[in-house]
């Protein structure tokens, strides 16, 4: 198996790069969309149940099915993979952002308004910083999920270790089948661990000392 790995090293690193990049992009876009929706939702309390329902339904949708649904629309290629992964990345962030923003003490918001902060300033300087620890927790969940979904998105030629996993599975019983599956899976796990460590460090740096647990 070691020899197998050494033989395919350039390919391995290309896949690792592709996988990580796909997840990174999906999580960043997902975070922006998720937080934006959460901001709108928390301003219109009537929308909150709707958003929760959509995110529940969205998360139960099997990713393999979504890949199939996307095919006729966006065709085969990394764009389809990105859309698919981003779709799942949105929900955990959105849910946590709604909870986080709702958890900001209303008197703090009123106090900020009373001092003459505009709505945007209140959001930027008070609400988002205070909701940030909860949002970041959502981003971590979202990242872990995206790494798994990205492996499945390989079905539409998305970049990443999904390619090796599927190759292995289709030729099971073959010479290198097990090695393909095992190395592909392990590599995805390692990427997940690395991302989580990075996010943990990000929390250390970005969560203000005054509200750090």
């Amino acid at each position, binding site marked *: 198996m070691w020899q197998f790995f050494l033989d395919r090293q350039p390919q391995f690193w290309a896949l690792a790069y592709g996988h990580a990049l796909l997840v990174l992009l999906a999580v960043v876009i997902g975070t922006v969309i998720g937080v934006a929706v959460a901001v709108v939702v928390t301003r219109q309390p009537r929308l909150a149940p709707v958003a929760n329902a959509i995110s529940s339904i969205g998360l139960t949708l099997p990713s393999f099915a979504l890949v199939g649904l996307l095919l006729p629309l966006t065709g085969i290629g990394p764009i389809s993979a990105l859309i698919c992964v981003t779709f799942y990345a949105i929900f955990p962030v959105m849910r946590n952002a709604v909870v986080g923003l709702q958890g900001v003490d209303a008197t703090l918001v009123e106090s900020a308004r*009373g001092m*003459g902060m505009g709505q945007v300033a209140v959001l930027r300087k008070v609400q988002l910083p205070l909701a940030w620890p909860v949002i970041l927790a959502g981003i971590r969940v979202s990242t872990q999920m995206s790494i798994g979904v990205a492996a499945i998105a390989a079905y539409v030629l998305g970049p990443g270790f999904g390619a090796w996993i599927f190759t292995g599975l289709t030729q099971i019983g073959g010479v290198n089948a097990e090695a393909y599956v095992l190395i592909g899976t392990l590599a995805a796990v390692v990427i997940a661990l690395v991302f989580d460590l990075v996010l943990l460090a990000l929390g250390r740096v970005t969560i203000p000392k005054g509200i750090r647990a």
Partner: protein
Amino acid sequence: MTVTDDPTSSSTSGSGSEISGAEIRLEEVTKTYPGQEVSAVKSLSLTIPAGEIVMFVGPSGCGKTTSLKMINRLIEPTSGTITIGGDDVRSRSADELRRTIGYVIQGGSLFPHMTVAKNIAIVPKMLGWDADRIRQRTDELLELVSLDPARYRDRYPRELSGGQQQRVGVARGLAADPPVILMDEPFGAVDPITRQRLQDELLSIQRELRKTIVCVTHDIDEAIKLGDRILILQEGAEVAQYDAPEAVLASPANDFVADFVGAGSSLKQLSLTRIAELDLSEVPTARVGEPTAEARARAQAAGHDHLIVLDDHDRPTAWPWLRQLKGETIHRGEEDLVNLDHRATLNDALDTMLTSSHGAAVVTGDRDRYLGVVWFDTVTSFMRQQQEALAEEGSGA
């Protein structure tokens, strides 16, 4: 530690400093919430003179908070006009207006993710002050509310006690030197002793600054103590009485006011008499760092077995018996000495004395400077004299 000279500060008592507040007028102000038949505030007209503290009191739901929040447009009136210093509050955007009005609410409502200094700097920053000026102002304000800037500037709110948070809240309200300050139950969330101290400090600050302060409270004693005038509101923000505390106590306008002010209004007179009206006693003092032997000799020569320790700013820090003095030089002392502002009431004085081992209270002036000591006997004999005077008046009539 930076001590900045405040142009408005003055070492003499209040009347010497200039009024920096502005007059507030409410004309026929009404607030009706959609879908409600009864107005929360019904054609309220009111003039709040510049440089005074006006207390809004009343039972819950009487519209006092609504009335307060209409001044800085957190609630927009349905009809009527509000002016500050002659300018209609609607002549500017709500945000611009609010940057010129201090706003202090219960518990200080500090932003937990910002340091004390950042919390205070919020409004000055929005007004575009440069960093140097903000830093200077922050330190100056921390001094003003009796917090050592070097120690507290970089702390986070959760590292402060409730009373300290509330002090920072007051400093934040004063940050951009606004002519008008609105306070909503500012001292509602702290224990009684801390509340009394904070009230005294507010009075002391107000003596220096002479802002126009509008303060909502449900506590009639607080209103009597702090207010130059008291506005007592009935349901629908109907004015039951608007007058000086003395007048409210002496002649309640109607049964509602009489009930609200409550029985024992002669006892409440204790809340009207300020320490400043009593004769303070002299007690030997010593400086922090002074040789203990000298201080001891001085106290004994004056026939006392105790002395009061003052720090560099003339602030009393401890009140030890001579036998408790240890070491070569006088040190600050461990005990947390409860001082009385000279604008504190006799009520507060009695409270403080009960917790003091000397049966007396240390009285301080502006910025906690030492003035003298008031003994329990002084208070009781003053009360007896007043009662006798009242009795004579009664028999004479």
